[in-house]
């Protein structure tokens, strides 16, 4: 990074099912709140980046025109579950390069438009034609991980239990009720060994963050917030033959690059918001991020190392499993959570003395790829 980039405000609506709200209806309120909270007038915004996957044409412009925010470039970004974080990456890169000073990033998605069920994937994809859906992909990761390691279905359930425990503390979470291991295991089978409570829900949501250069931050007289210490985006690489589904290369590579950019090690992190779309993902990512040795991710969840009071709090927001996962909004919502945590505004779910945070989203079911896109950010309290 050539210039320091800061997150100076964050706003979001609680993730939920908003059947009577459009993309505009979901996103305009946090857009207004984030600008106000940043003390930024719409005339000071240099560019708008909007992450969404199913919003249709000109989603960003449809939102921004409602508050008369126009003229400046509006970039609509689709990278499946990484859409929102990719938008942040693009905004951050533009500021770091000195091209712009203030950027607004919106992540928004309305999944209730599909009436429930698994996420619609591209009908042009070979495996989608064969009937693949995301729960099946993660379920096959889980089958193989349980086969290769000592981890059990109970460990998969423990991930959901922790997510729900955290979500119960988070007023922004879609699910605020705690669950037990027994309840998770007894819930409806979705794709063996994954049960319903091991899968993130469908829902709607919007989150907005305002990014600013050091110069703009000084001009605005902003204090606190957080500095973007690393911003990494990678695409999946095709593998025609054998692929180890329990070692997600795209997430490992992104994490290594992010640690190098930030100049920190995994043990320095106080909190992580990671892509727990299905409970197996959290275990696999503990290893990909260097938090656990190969095959030993379950030890962390069994020993409570990744909840409040542990060595690194993973998904203090409740994660995708409890907070919810309106695809394009998730990456921005993770950064909003990091912002609140690092600036001491996280209420009942505050991570003690949080200084370093990492956010991670990876998305897209595409034949031959582990994931289509992976975005990782690391933040330091300013």
């Amino acid at each position, binding site marked *: 990074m050539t210039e320091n980039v800061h997150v100076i405000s964050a706003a979001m609506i609680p993730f939920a099912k908003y059947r009577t709200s459009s993309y505009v209806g979901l996103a305009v309120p946090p857009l207004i709140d984030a600008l106000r909270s940043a003390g930024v007038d719409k005339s000071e915004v240099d560019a708008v980046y909007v992450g969404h996957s199913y919003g249709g044409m000109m989603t960003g412009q449809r939102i921004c025109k409602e508050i008369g925010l126009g003229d400046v470039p509006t970039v609509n970004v689709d990278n499946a579950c990484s859409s929102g974080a990719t938008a942040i990456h693009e905004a951050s890169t533009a500021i770091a390069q000195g091209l712009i000073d203030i950027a607004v990033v919106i992540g928004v998605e309305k999944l209730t438009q599909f009436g429930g*069920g*698994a996420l619609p994937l591209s009908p*042009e994809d*070979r*495996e989608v*034609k*064969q*009937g*693949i*859906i995301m*729960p*099946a992909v993660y*379920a*096959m*990761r*889980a*089958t*193989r991980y349980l*086969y*290769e390691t000592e981890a059990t279905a109970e460990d998969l359930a423990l991930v959901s239990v922790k997510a729900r425990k955290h979500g119960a503390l988070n007023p922004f979470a879609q699910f605020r009720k705690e669950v037990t291991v027994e309840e998770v295991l007894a819930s*409806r*089978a*979705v*794709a*063996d*060994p*994954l049960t319903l409570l091991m899968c993130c829900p469908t829902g709607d949501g919007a989150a907005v963050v305002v990014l600013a250069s050091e110069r703009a931050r000084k001009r605005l007289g902003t204090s606190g917030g957080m500095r973007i210490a690393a911003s990494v985006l990678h695409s999946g690489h*095709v*593998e*025609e*033959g*054998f*692929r180890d*589904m329990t070692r997600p290369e795209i997430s490992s590579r992104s994490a290594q690059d992010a640690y190098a950019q930030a100049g920190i090690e995994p043990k320095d992190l106080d909190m992580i918001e990671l892509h727990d779309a299905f409970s197996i993902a959290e275990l696999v990512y503990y290893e990909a991020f260097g938090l656990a040795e190969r095959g030993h991710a379950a030890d962390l969840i069994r020993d409570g190392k990744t909840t409040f009071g542990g060595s690194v709090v993973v998904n203090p927001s409740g994660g995708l499993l409890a907070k919810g996962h309106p695809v394009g909004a998730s990456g921005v919502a993770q950064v909003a959570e990091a912002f609140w945590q690092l600036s001491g505004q996280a209420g009942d779910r505050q991570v003690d003395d949080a200084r370093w945070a990492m956010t991670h989203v990876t998305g897209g079911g595409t*034949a*031959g790829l582990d994931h289509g896109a992976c975005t990782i950010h690391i933040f330091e309290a300013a």
Partner: protein
Amino acid sequence: MKTETAAKASAAIADMENDDLLSAFPEGPRLLGTRCGDCGREMIGTRVVCSSCVSSNVGTIALPTTGTLYSFTRLHVGGEGIRPLGYVDLDNDVRTLADIREGDTPLEPGIRVELGVDGENWFFAREASETKGHHHD
């Protein structure tokens, strides 16, 4: 004025014309694959370019009928009943998603499987001669 060289148009691929993976070969019904004539990489489906070396010197092949089950799930949503689905690593190191037919013995990763054809549908099932699993670790 006529230039010495003129820009050539790229040609679209009619990849939606026939996207069935199962095809009739002299040896019987097989999954369609593509082999790169330059680097030798074999791939699932019909391709016009090698994803490894970007060569257009590619040709259609019949994929092996046997392989190892890498992983699987029994899908309870998105259709009627339970649908076992898995990734099969064919013996030429090409991975394919496939319906998996369950037999009397429960499925497990690492077992040897073979192609079965039932009308227009195809699937993989435990190899008839399979006695113990071969683990691809």
